[in-house]
């Protein structure tokens, strides 16, 4: 009945219900959820709206899905329902170059938008490492970050307005420039629990006049992270400030030959974009701080090709982990930037305690850690060790005044950890928003808000941070 109604509304071609289809959509890059009752591939807002209305009629929850690259189960159906996959809604609907903005459908791939406007010397700033496959709709749902968020801000800062299909299938729009509650801000990062984004106005930025990329090497992670804290404390916020430890650089070099030194304990990848006139002074200031904190070498990328290669290595780092171990678990926590050395120290202690290899590749300038714990999922002891150390890392971040997700979101995986960060009153206040937009708890249920027992599944490799 549900299926026939969906087929009637969207066409047979847009409704998937074979067991093999359902199984593919039962998980994202985190873990397996439950089998959905159906998967729909709408081509328009009207079709999304129709699908929501039908699902509601049958009491089936709705689970919106972009590319399924999320690492926390945000796109996994946990109570069955209808998965709304945005694969076919991948058009740039309107390009307003004069005002540097674009209206895109949620299925547009992040990197495609920047590529599309590159000829006009514009770009879309949020750049999660998954940007070659992840969608703008998914990025909006998780308020996705990326290396360049350090100076450009996360997805939140780049969304100007949204078109949303609500829990009843009705359509409304938001606009950050209009008086009224900032519903755009509530929607961004809400992981599909408040409404389904069917179109977004996003800001495009002018390409900077000059871009420089530098590499600084250090003997160990501690001195590199002290350098990062000192750079920030000096009021210097580069466009990107990334760190990789020796384990990570060796995997990256084996996979990409990107030009990272493999004999250093830690490497900082620093980018600054802006006016050519300021670049030399900038380089002097940052390199002096790096040297004061024990940098053993400092070099500038000499060409665009060299810069691109370094970035390709950095953004492909998670994928390169397959060279180290059959599986890895990628944690995402954010701490105060002055506590980076302590946080890194804690991560390394935890890994040692559980006898796991850890690779660190992360957005150091933001204090956003991404320890990757290497393991073999065929070994039950290692699986248990990874689950426990993942939780220990969350606790360590919280103890340092940090938070349980910097940019990947809460999804299903971390919902219990929300209790560690927020009081019951804080969570109840958040829940009021949920009750307004989704009183029947039909939009991506079992996400963000804690309930029941914690279930920390562990992922397979090949995922992208």
């Amino acid at each position, binding site marked *: 009945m549900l299926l026939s109604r969906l087929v009637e509304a969207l066409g047979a071609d847009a409704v998937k219900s074979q067991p093999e289809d359902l199984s593919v959509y039962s998980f994202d890059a985190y873990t397996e959820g439950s089998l959905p009752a159906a998967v729909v591939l709408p081509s328009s807002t009207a079709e999304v709206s129709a699908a929501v209305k039908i699902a509601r009629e049958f009491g089936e929850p709705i689970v919106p899905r972009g590319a399924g690259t999320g690492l926390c189960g945000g796109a996994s159906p946990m109570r069955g329902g209808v998965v709304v996959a945005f694969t076919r809604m991948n058009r740039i609907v309107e390009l307003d170059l*004069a005002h540097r903005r674009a209206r895109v459908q949620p299925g547009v791939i992040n990197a495609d938008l920047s590529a599309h406007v590159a000829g006009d010397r514009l770009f879309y700033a949020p750049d999660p490492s998954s940007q070659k496959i992840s969608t703008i709709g998914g990025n909006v749902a998780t308020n996705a*970050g990326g290396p360049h968020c350090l100076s450009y*801000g*996360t997805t*939140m*800062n780049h969304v100007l307005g949204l078109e949303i299909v*609500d829990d009843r299938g009705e359509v*409304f*729009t*938001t*606009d*950050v420039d*209009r*008086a*009224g*509650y*900032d*519903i755009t*801000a*509530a929607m*961004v*990062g809400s992981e599909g629990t408040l409404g389904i984004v069917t179109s977004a106005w996003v800001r495009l930025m002018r390409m900077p006049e000059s871009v420089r990329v530098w590499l600084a090497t250090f003997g160990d992670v501690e001195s590199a992270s002290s350098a990062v*804290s000192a750079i*920030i*404390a000096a*009021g*210097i*916020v580069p466009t990107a400030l990334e760190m990789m430890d020796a384990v990570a650089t060796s995997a990256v070099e084996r996979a990409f030959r990107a030009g990272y030194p493999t004999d250093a304990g830690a490497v900082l990848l620093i980018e600054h974009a802006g*006016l050519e*006139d*300021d670049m030399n*002074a900038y380089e002097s200031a940052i390199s002096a701080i790096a040297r004061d904190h024990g940098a053993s070498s400092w070099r500038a990328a000499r060409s665009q090709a060299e810069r691109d290669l370094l970035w390709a290595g950095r953004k492909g780092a998670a994928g390169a982990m397959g060279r180290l171990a059959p599986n890895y678990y990628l944690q995402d926590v*954010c701490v*105060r*930037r002055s506590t980076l050395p302590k946080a890194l120290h804690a991560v390394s202690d935890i890994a040692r305690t559980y006898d796991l290899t850890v690779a660190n590749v992360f*957005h150091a300038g*933001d*204090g956003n850690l991404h320890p990757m714990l290497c393991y073999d999922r065929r070994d039950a002891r290692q699986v248990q060790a990874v689950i426990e150390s993942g939780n220990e890392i969350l606790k360590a971040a919280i103890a340092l*005044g*940090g938070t*349980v*997700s*910097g*940019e*990947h979101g809460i999804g299903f995986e*971390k919902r219990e950890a*929300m209790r560690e*960060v*927020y*009081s019951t*009153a*804080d*969570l*109840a*206040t*958040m829940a*009021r*928003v949920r009750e*307004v*937009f989704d009183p029947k708890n039909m939009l991506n249920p079992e996400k963000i808000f804690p309930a029941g027992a914690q279930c920390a599944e562990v992922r397979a490799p090949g995922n992208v941070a």
Partner: protein
Amino acid sequence: MTVEGVSHLLKNANENGECVLVAGGNTLRGMGRPPLRVDVTLSTLGLNAIVEDAPADLTIAVQAGLTLRTLAHTLAPHKTHVPFDAPRAADATVGGTLAAGWLGPRRHLYGRPRDFVIGSVAVLADGTIARAGGMVVKNVSGYDMSRLYVGSFGTLAVLVQVNLKTAAAPPMQRVFSMRLPEGTRERALSVLSNLNVTPAAAFWIDGFRGTIDGDEGQEGRMIVLLEGTAHTIERLTREVRSALGRAGVPETRIVDAGARESFERVLDAYVACVGERSITYRIPAFPDEALACARDLTALATRFELRHDALVDAMNGDVIFRVNDLDAMALGAKIEMFDDALHDQQPNAIVIAGNHSHRPLLAVWGAQPDAIEQMRALKSRFDPKNTLNPGRFVAGI
């Protein structure tokens, strides 16, 4: 006043069916409607502590009643700032500026005020003390409640503390001021907004004499703020001068000492009133349409025989338009019809200053937003008894 005190006060008022007016520095009192009823006034001015100054993290947590001036003074030794750009910084509070959703002229460069907010403590109408976010600069743990409170005019909750991200303050500021000879206005604005190097702010001004510096030419005057390192300023100076020269603007006056004060006088003009006899509108426009918008409004004001002052934020496109008349009565005789005509042209115009509490017919919030139903539902879930600032916000919320 303590946070617990605010909680206690709101809880009592809410239980007793009393209405609470929330006030900061009263600098943006001219925005929105007066509350339908006031039984208790809650001033946040006593909540003015610096909760945590963390310069090494480039963050600071402050109570909502702290003034923008004190915030700036606190950050100055660290060479950082939080560029909210609200008028009357000595009186304006951090909480009030955020609650009013203030948008300043340097946001094209630094971002919106809301984008500096990384955490908050708010007190709900029933006295619930709710925290959101934290002191980290990136955080996706649940809904961004802090940003939802920003721009909500204290109708969802009372902000009592905000945690802010800070940014390195520009080492140098320079102000250019110039009169515009005939035939130069359009070109001057267009060349400025298309420079490779971006001025921190650029304004075209017609009127506001005595409030904003500079002398009028045949087509008004301009004030341009440059910020950055000495190198940047040097480069900007060269490029701005040559661009303006191409546009036919021969002379510019440069102010280095006092540049900040000069810029602040422009900000103050946004809400400067002519006694009880003026109303000021903010009209959102695109930068390339703002000048035409100001011209249309000037024609409209002239038709209504209203005196007027105009200010165009060339970088963001905001048009600030103030009308006034000989006295409050003369203004009163025309303002409602003018308001109608203005909103016919610019449905999203909002009122940001003026004494209009007795003029319920003015469309102070402009056209009703599309998501009004959701907004009403939010209000009734957060403040079901309509305790907080009732009637002050959009569509009577």
